[in-house]
C-alpha cells in the first residue's frame, strides 16, 4: 500500500512540473509573437522571398569571388590566431599541468571572457581599433575562438591517462618535457579534430563579419538584402552554401586520413 502511495506522489509532482513548463513556453511564445496566425502568415511571406531569389543572377558572381576568398582567409587566419592564443592558455588552465589554483582560475576566467563575447562584438571592437577590412575580422574570430579552443584543450588535457605522465616524472624529466612527451601525444588527435571542426564553424561565422565592416562576403550579402536585390542575394547564398559544403567535405576527408 505504501508503494502505491509513493507512486501517486511521484506522478503528481511530474504533472505539476510539466504544467509549469507548458505555461512557461506559452508565455514565451506569446511574448516573441509566436502565434498560429502569425506563423500561418509568415511561412508564405518567407516562401515568397525565396521565390524572388530565383532565377539567380549568375553574372553577379563575378564580383563575389574576391570577398568569398577573403572569407576563407579570415577563417584560416582566425583559426591560426585562435591556436596561438588557445594553446598556451589551454595548457595553463589544465588541472594536471598547473598546480596553482590561482593561476588556473585566472586563466579560465580570461578564456571565459574571450569565448562569451560574440565574435561580432569583438569585430566591432577591432574595427574601431585597426579600421575596416578583413584584418579586424580575423582578429575577432581569433580572439573568440581562442577562448573556445582553449577551454576544449584544457578539458582534453585533464582527461588523459596519467600513467605515462607518472612514468616520465619518475625518469626525472622536467615539467615541460613531461607535457611534451607524455601529455601532448595523447591529446594531439583530439586537438586536430577540434581545430578542423572550428575552422568549419569559422567559415560560417566569417560570412557575417562583413556586416560590421570586418571583411568577407557579409558586406555584399547585407547590401543586396538592404537594396532588395533578391536575385543577387540568391547568388550570394548559393556561393556561401557551396563554400561551406566544400569545406565540409575537405574536412571530413582530412579527418579520415589522419586516423
Amino acid at each position, binding site marked *: 500500500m505504501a508503494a502505491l502511495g509513493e507512486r501517486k506522489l511521484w506522478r503528481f509532482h511530474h504533472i505539476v512540473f510539466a504544467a509549469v513548463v507548458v505555461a512557461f*513556453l506559452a508565455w*514565451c*511564445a506569446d*511574448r*516573441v*509573437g*509566436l502565434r498560429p496566425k*502569425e506563423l500561418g*502568415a*509568415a511561412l508564405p*511571406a*518567407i516562401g*515568397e*522571398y525565396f521565390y524572388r531569389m530565383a532565377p539567380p543572377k549568375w553574372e553577379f558572381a563575378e564580383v563575389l569571388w574576391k570577398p568569398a*576568398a*577573403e572569407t*576563407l*582567409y*579570415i577563417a*584560416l*587566419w582566425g583559426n*591560426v590566431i585562435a591556436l596561438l592564443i588557445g594553446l598556451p592558455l589551454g595548457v595553463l588552465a589544465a588541472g594536471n599541468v598547473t598546480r596553482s589554483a590561482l593561476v588556473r582560475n585566472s586563466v579560465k576566467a580570461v578564456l*571565459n*571572457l574571450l569565448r*562569451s*563575447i*560574440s565574435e*561580432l*562584438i569583438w569585430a*566591432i*571592437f*577591432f574595427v*574601431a*581599433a*585597426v*579600421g575596416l*577590412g*578583413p*584584418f579586424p*575580422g*580575423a*582578429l575577432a574570430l581569433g580572439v573568440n575562438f581562442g577562448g573556445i579552443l582553449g577551454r576544449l584543450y584544457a578539458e582534453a588535457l585533464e582527461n588523459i591517462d596519467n600513467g605515462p605522465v607518472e612514468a616520465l616524472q619518475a625518469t626525472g624529466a622536467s615539467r615541460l618535457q613531461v607535457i611534451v612527451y607524455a601529455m601532448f601525444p595523447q591529446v594531439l588527435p583530439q586537438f586536430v579534430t577540434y581545430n578542423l571542426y572550428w575552422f568549419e564553424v569559422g567559415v*560560417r*561565422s566569417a*560570412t*557575417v563579419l562583413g*556586416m*560590421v565592416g570586418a571583411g568577407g562576403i557579409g558586406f555584399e*550579402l*547585407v547590401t543586396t*538584402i538592404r537594396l*532588395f536585390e533578391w536575385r543577387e*542575394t540568391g547568388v550570394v*547564398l548559393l556561393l*556561401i*552554401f557551396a*563554400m*561551406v*559544403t566544400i569545406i*565540409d567535405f575537405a574536412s571530413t576527408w582530412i579527418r579520415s586520413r589522419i586516423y
Partner: protein
Amino acid sequence: MSSTTFEAAVSAALSEESRRRGKRLGKALIWATAAIAVLWFTGAQIGMSPLALVKGIPFMADFFSRMFPPDLDHLPLLGDATLETVQIAVWGTLIAILLSIPLALLGAKNTTPHPIVFHVTRLFLNALRAINELVFALIFVSAVGLGPFAGVLAIALHATGMLAKFCAEEVEGVDRGPIEAMQATGANRLQVILFGIVPQVIPAFISYSIYRFDVSIRAATILGLVGAGGLGFSLIKTMKLFKYHETATCILVIFIIVLISDWVCAKVRARII
C-alpha cells in the same frame, strides 16, 4: 646475444633511424614551406599586420575608456531585452527539436523511405546549416517585420539543420543487434524505428539539443543587431546614440547570460548522462 651480433643489430637500427629521420625531416620541410606560403599569401590578402595592431592600441584604449565604467543604472531597462533573448532561444531550439526528429529520420540511410528523399533531405539540411542565423534573421526581418519573431525563425532553421544532421548520423550509427532482434519478431518498419532505433539515439540527441540551446542563446544575444529582437538591439541602439557606457552594460549582461547558460547546460548534461 653474442657481442658481434649485438653490435650489428645496434648499428643496423641506428642507420635505419637516421634514414627515417631524413625522410621525416624532408616531409616536414615540404609541409612547413607549403603552410608558410599559404599563410603568407592569405595574410597579405587580408592585411594581417602586427604593426597595425600595435598602432591600434591607443584606439582600443580610447574605446575602453568610453565604455568604462558600465552604466549600471541602465541594468533594469535591459530586463525585458534579456528575457526576450532567452525566450527567443527557448522557442528557436524547441522548434528545431520538433522539426529535426522527422528530418533526421528522413535523412538517415537506414530509415529513409527512398534514396531521393534521403538526398533531398540532406541537401536541405546542409543548406540550413551553411547559412548563419544572422543571415536568416536579415531575410526574415524583411519578410515578417522587425522583432523577435524573425529571430525565433532564424534560430530555429539553423538549429534544425545542425540538430537534424547530427541526429541522422547517430541514427545511421546505431547498434544493429536490437534492430535485427525486433525484425525477427515480425515488427513492421515504423515499430522498428520507434522501439529499436529511437531509444538508442535519445541520450545523444538530448545532450546535443542542450548544447544547441547554449549556442542559440549566444546567437540570440546578437540577433538584435539586425533588428530581430533581444539584447543585440539594445546594444546597437546605444551604440548609435553614442551612449557607450550603456553599451558596456549590454555587453556585460550578454557576458553574464552566456556564462549562466553555459553553467546550466553543463550541469543538466552531466545529470542526464
